């Protein structure tokens, strides 16, 4: 293959992946025919799992390499279009594929922070980083910090930050892999984790970046087909239009009208809803009374007796809480759940809804004085402003975090030129955009379906998928007739966010083979991201720590052996961590963005755009940025023993980066100005990265 010119290589790739896409579609059609002939659903699940993992492994084996440049940066000849697809797959994780539409379903406008944040970041990548990193042309992000600022400390800080962000992120991916494998095949979660891990390893272990790149392209094709087909079908069913992104404007209006009706007790639907909400309210009061009794018993020193009495009253079930505190937590959760279900539905497209204090006041006290109304309004406004501030902060952190995550930035080392790197960011975002602008449409379409074919239906006539998913996992789907009228009300339904994408094929009335394909798509999303992340961590350790700092004379063979060994170790540690099912995984993923933004962004951007930035500035900026962000999370997040009372301006801990980033920028600037300007060679390096080609230029490219 090395004898091919870039143009020939490009057309060969297009031909290969063209065949591949055709092959995948044929494969799905054949399975669909087999299903009609009576192939059981479980078999379809196994075949999808087996076939796709075998495929990824096959690409991995075909791309195995012993060449350093091939291993670290895929030989730097990945054409812009294909690097775009690989970046798309690298970027879109299980959270994007499965979770995104669910978040949008549950939080409407407020969920759009993720859609904007995870796409707008590419503008920063394109304008501030990708072309310059490509010109620099080494292997890792710490490489750039090391060369630009000199010395081992900036490099080490870079390695440290890269490992913290990527590790947190990879644990979440492997967790997703385990979950999907378990769903697809019925294997146990822990086994699912290791089966998925095998799929990840075969690929990255043999061929490093080269294998990962070509597998990610294949994975992108699967995941985008799997995402699109059910949504298009659903859109045809509901709106009679095969372009969901255009069609859902009308559907959104119908959804909004329905939401008004549900909130209006004057209508038949609204009255039924109000009765279900009242029943929730009564339940909430019941649990609150229980909690009060518990607190009194504990205060009187009779906690143990109270617990024993409650256990007996509940019929001594196995899963009864073992301590008074656990029992209190359980009740508190139940009371909160009922409280939430007793409130009105928020309109889908409404931005930053207030507390509803004014509406509540007028409902409970129609003759409220002007003063009381003004007070309630002020409360609503304060809540709404706080939501807006948090939305802005989250969008900023996600965007800057995107432009700082090493596994994404690394991908722009693999293009043949600066020119191609710039084009490649365009392709990356275009491919990501395809999924992200479909997710809000999907959320609205599913909401329409829930409002129209579930709400108002007798419990006996619910579609089959409701019972099926309720049996799989009650946190995903639950329907309880709380006001005992035999009819489903919205307040009686519990829908988990992760359900939305998984259930779409069934709502649309598609055969099981499409459900299998969606699961395979989710698996592709999780595996591709995990691949990229594992490689980033292993490379930071093997290249930056081992080769650059410990043994710069190491032979190629040894470098690759160390890298592969570390890959295995990191993968196993990550899988082990994931199999423990750590809580708060979503928070940790979000936190990775804030941390990356605080640690990397100031030093990377100023490194290119400000010649005066120097060693001291980088060290201070990175430490302070990361430090402030971690400190903020630590004092505000309950998991670390913090409390929301410590929040600055009411900003949630997940957006701690809004404080870390400015601190990082200030750190770099002040630190640099207080110490000597960088040496001439460093200034030349900056010129070198700024111009794609320069006469008498220095050379930084690593072979």
């Amino acid at each position, binding site marked *: 293959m090395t004898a091919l010119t870039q143009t020939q290589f490009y057309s060969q790739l297009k031909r290969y992946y063209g065949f591949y896409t055709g092959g995948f579609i044929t494969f799905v059609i054949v399975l669909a025919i087999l299903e009609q002939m009576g192939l059981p659903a479980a078999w379809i699940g196994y075949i999808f799992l087996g076939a796709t993992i075998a495929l990824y492994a096959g690409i991995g084996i075909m791309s195995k390499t012993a060449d350093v440049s091939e291993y670290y940066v895929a030989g730097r000849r990945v054409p812009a279009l294909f690097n775009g697809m690989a970046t798309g797959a690298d970027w879109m994780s299980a959270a994007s594929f499965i979770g995104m539409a669910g978040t949008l379903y549950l939080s409407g*406008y407020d969920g759009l922070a993720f*859609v904007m944040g995870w796409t707008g970041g590419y503008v920063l990548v394109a304008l501030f980083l990708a072309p310059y990193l490509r010109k620099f042309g080494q292997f890792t992000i710490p490489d750039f910090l090391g060369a630009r600022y000199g010395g081992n400390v900036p490099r080490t800080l870079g390695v440290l930050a890269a490992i913290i962000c990527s590790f947190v992120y990879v644990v979440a991916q492997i967790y997703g892999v385990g979950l999907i494998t378990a769903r697809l095949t019925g294997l146990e979660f822990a086994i699912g984790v290791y089966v998925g891990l095998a799929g990840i390893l075969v690929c990255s272990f043999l061929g490093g970046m080269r294998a990962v790149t070509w597998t990610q392209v294949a994975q992108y094709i699967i995941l985008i087909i799997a995402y699109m087909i059910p949504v298009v079908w659903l859109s045809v069913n509901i709106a009679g239009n095969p372009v969901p992104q255009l069609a859902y404007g009308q559907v959104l209006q119908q959804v909004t009208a329905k939401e008004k009706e549900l909130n209006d007790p004057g209508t038949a639907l609204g009255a039924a809803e109000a009765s279900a909400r009242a029943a929730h309210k009564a339940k909430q009061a019941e649990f609150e009374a229980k909690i009060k009794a518990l607190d009194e018993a504990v205060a009187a020193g009779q906690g143990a007796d109270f617990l024993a009495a409650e256990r007996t009253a509940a019929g001594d079930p196995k899963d009864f809480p073992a301590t008074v505190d656990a029992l209190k937590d359980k009740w508190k959760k139940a009371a909160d759940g009922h409280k939430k279900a007793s409130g009105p539905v928020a309109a889908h497209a409404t931005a930053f809804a207030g507390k509803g204090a004014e509406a509540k006041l007028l409902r409970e006290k129609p003759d409220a004085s002007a003063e009381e109304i003004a007070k309630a309004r002020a409360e609503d406004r304060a809540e709404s402003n706080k939501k807006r501030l948090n939305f802005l902060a989250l969008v900023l952190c996600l965007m800057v975090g995107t432009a700082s995550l090493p596994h994404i930035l690394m991908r722009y080392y693999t293009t043949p030129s600066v*020119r191609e790197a710039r084009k490649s960011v365009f392709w990356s975002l275009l491919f990501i955009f395809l999924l992200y602008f479909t997710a809000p449409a999907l959320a609205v379409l599913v909401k329409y379906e829930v409002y129209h074919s579930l709400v108002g239906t007798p419990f006996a006539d619910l579609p089959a998928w409701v019972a099926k998913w309720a049996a799989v996992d009650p946190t995903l789907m639950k329907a309880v007739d709380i006001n005992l009228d035999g009819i489903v009300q919205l307040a009686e339904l519990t829908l988990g966010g992760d359900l939305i994408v998984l259930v779409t094929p069934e709502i649309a009335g598609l055969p099981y083979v499409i459900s299998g394909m969606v699961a395979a798509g989710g698996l592709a999303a999780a595996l591709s991201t995990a691949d990229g992340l594992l490689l980033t961590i292993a490379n930071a350790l093997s290249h930056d720590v081992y080769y650059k700092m410990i043994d710069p004379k190491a032979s190629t063979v040894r470098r690759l052996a160390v890298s592969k060994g570390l890959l295995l170790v990191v993968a196993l540690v990550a899988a082990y961590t994931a199999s423990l099912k750590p809580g708060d995984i979503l928070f940790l993923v979000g936190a990775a963005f804030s941390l990356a933004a605080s640690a990397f962004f100031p030093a990377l951007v100023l490194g290119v755009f400000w010649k005066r930035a120097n060693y001291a500035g980088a060290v201070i900026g990175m430490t302070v940025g990361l430090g402030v962000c971690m400190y903020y999370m630590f004092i505000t997040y309950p998991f670390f023993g913090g409390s929301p009372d410590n929040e600055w301006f009411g900003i949630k801990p997940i957006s701690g980066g809004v404080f870390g980033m400015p601190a990082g920028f200030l750190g770099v600037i002040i630190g640099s100005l207080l110490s000597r300007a960088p040496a001439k060679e460093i200034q030349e390096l900056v010129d070198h990265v700024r111009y*794609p080609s320069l006469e008498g230029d220095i050379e930084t490219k690593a072979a």
Partner: protein
Amino acid sequence: MQLTDKHREYWRRNLNLTGVLLAIWFVVTFVVIWFAKELNEVVIAGFPFAFYMGAQGALIVYVLIIWYYARRMNQLDQEYGVHEGEE
């Protein structure tokens, strides 16, 4: 390695372009979010405007920004003779 005036001009034009595109990015993202409640009063083809921007509009603008930047910079490279050789 000595930078000529031409080189400096290339870099200045790059900075200008970057600044303008960044300003557009800022407006479609943060300014629209800030006024989301007010903008949502405007409904186009069934979509409240701020909702539409968050779900599609801003994303389309991002894609266009990056497309334009790549195109323009690749032209500037040629114009100022700092482009890479063919590979």
